[in-house]
């Protein structure tokens, strides 16, 4: 009886989550169609989807797996550059723009997943602070490598270099030119595609979390030794969470690359700063709370645009929010105080411990 009730509660919660996204899409799309939304806001819609996907996917690692990854933007970078590379090569050579974008999306996701797996195998042997700093290191290495990569194409095929612009035949074009990145990517990403990707991301993460595998992943988070002793394959499940998260970040990168016509890798879009930004979304939305991190991503992306005067203080406010949220949620004294004065809904959490 109780079990049945629990399942229905879970399902209801999931329906609410999907419902919020679909409802938001319908409202915003109607507003766009009736012209009651500024073009600035309209331009923000795809970034909103990108950040929502990133936040949800990072929450899979931070909240569900319980490890801190500071290189999430690196996977986004891999997805963005591989897909933009494909799209630029194929521009004008494929009949259907939709099919080209779909293939670019698959390539971006696959590349990010492969990177996630390759990086995950060594990294996931570590834990805690070390894992965080190594993911940070990998993220920076990816950004660094992209910045020294030059790829050109001419009739003789592809040319690679890590030094400088190479001599190409007359018909050749540079595809990736080091720090200048890729320019001339088709702007295929639309709000509808973004929303669909958000829904797919939510579907994957929610279903993974509520599956047998998801429970195994959470058991590793709660007590690694106990999980190992009952026969859970730690490496397999850690890798699973990490790779899925990387692949989803890759899809956000594909959206990012196809939302702008030129793509460069800087600290703010694919570096450490971006990884921290995504972490802020996750922490503010609630570590482990999928719906929360999505909503936090949307609010924190919209807020500085709505309050233009605040943009100078944006990062400062984020920093303070991050510290205060952590202290309020995790400090033993704060938890004690909360339980004493704001006891609603806290009993349940205590029982889990």
């Amino acid at each position, binding site marked *: 009886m109780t079990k049945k009730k629990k399942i229905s509660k879970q399902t209801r919660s999931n329906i609410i989550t999907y419902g919020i996204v679909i409802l938001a899409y319908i409202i915003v799309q109607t507003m766009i169609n009736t012209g009651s939304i500024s073009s600035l806001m309209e331009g923000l819609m795809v970034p909103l989807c990108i950040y929502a996907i990133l936040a949800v996917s990072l929450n899979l690692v*931070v909240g569900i797996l*319980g490890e*801190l990854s*500071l290189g999430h933007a690196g996977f986004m970078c891999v997805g963005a550059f591989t897909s933009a590379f494909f799209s630029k090569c194929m521009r004008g050579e494929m009949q259907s723009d939709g099919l080209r974008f779909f293939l670019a999306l698959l390539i971006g996701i696959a590349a990010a997943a492969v990177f996630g797996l390759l990086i995950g195998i*060594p990294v996931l*042997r*570590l834990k*805690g*602070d*070390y894992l*965080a*700093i*190594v993911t*940070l*290191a*990998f993220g*920076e*290495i990816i950004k*660094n*490598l992209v*910045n*020294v990569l030059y790829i050109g194409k001419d009739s003789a095929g592809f040319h690679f270099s*890590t030094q400088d612009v190479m001599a190409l035949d007359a018909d050749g074009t540079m595809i990736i030119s080091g720090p200048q990145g890729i320019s001339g990517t088709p702007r295929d990403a639309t709000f509808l595609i973004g929303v669909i990707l958000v829904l797919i991301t939510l579907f994957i993460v929610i279903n993974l979390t509520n599956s047998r595998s998801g429970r195994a992943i959470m058991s590793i988070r709660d007590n690694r*030794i106990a999980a190992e002793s009952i026969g859970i394959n730690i490496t397999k499940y850690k890798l699973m969470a990490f790779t899925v998260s990387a692949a989803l970040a890759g899809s956000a990168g594909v959206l990012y690359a196809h939302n702008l016509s030129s793509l460069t890798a800087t600290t703010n879009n694919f570096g*450490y700063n971006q990884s*921290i930004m995504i*972490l802020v979304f996750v*922490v503010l939305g609630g*570590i482990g709370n999928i719906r929360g991190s999505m909503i936090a991503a949307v609010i924190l992306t919209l807020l500085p645009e709505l309050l233009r005067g605040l943009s*100078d*203080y944006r*990062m*400062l406010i*984020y*920093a*303070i929010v*991050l*510290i205060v949220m*952590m*202290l309020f*949620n*995790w*400090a*033993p*004294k*704060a938890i004690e105080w909360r339980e004493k004065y704001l006891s609603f809904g806290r009993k349940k959490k205590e029982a889990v*411990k």
Partner: protein
Amino acid sequence: MGMSFISYLINGLSLGSVYAIIALGYTMVYGIAKMLNFAHGDVIMIGAYTALIAITQSGLPPVAGVLAAVVVCTALGVVIEGVAYRPLRNASSSLAVLITAIGVSYLLQNIALLVFGPNAQTFPSVIKWDGVSLADGKLNISGVTIVTIGACILIMILLMTFVQKSKQGQAMRAVSEDRGAAQLMGINVNGTIALTFAIGSALAAIAGVLLCSAYPTLTPYTGAMPGIKAFVAAVFGGIGSIPGAFIGGLLLGIIEILGRAYISSQMADAIVFAVLIVVLLVKPAGLLGKKIQEKV
């Protein structure tokens, strides 16, 4: 090749000395408070700005400027520890304090951004000495380089003596070994950890001045990268070990400068991080670190 290699090596030692001083702060805090103080690099930046203001705007002599930086950073370190880290010391998840430290790092960067602006400021030369010229002028060693390396060695010796011989140092080692038992023995754990942060932050101030003397541009982000690299150095040498931080810092500085010179200047950061990854995968305890058996 010969002379340029030696001069690269000396530059590497100089940069490595700065890393070593920063890494000493990291390694002490990590060893005693068992946390990664992400904001350590930004304390360096605050120290450098303090020295800059004290010297250029208040017209203080360089030595007083360095002292001012040390005082400000020490206070800052203690305040950060008390306000942001101490409440989370017994939190159920170790991620909590790590994320808070990232928040503090961001806070310091953005305060500096608002107060000092995003533009790079030129750091005044604190060390007026021209240095020495060897091998008929083929090999010049600047005063900054000599002072940096000397300061690093001096700090290391002082710190080793302090930790090994003094009563507070003994308390630090005890807290590092077993916090609970140390408390039962009547050691003031909170005080000891605060003292550790004070020492670490004072070292960060000195490192900030030395770093900006060698590379005289100062922005709110100046401290972030050296901070992370110094952590790499601390891990390289074996976290928690003072001689380890020293050796790790020097080696990392040399690797970075040689990598910049002979492999690729744009890839220098990637090379440093690759070192971290290799060390953690091959010898996770670092060069001089103790292997800790995990208790079930």
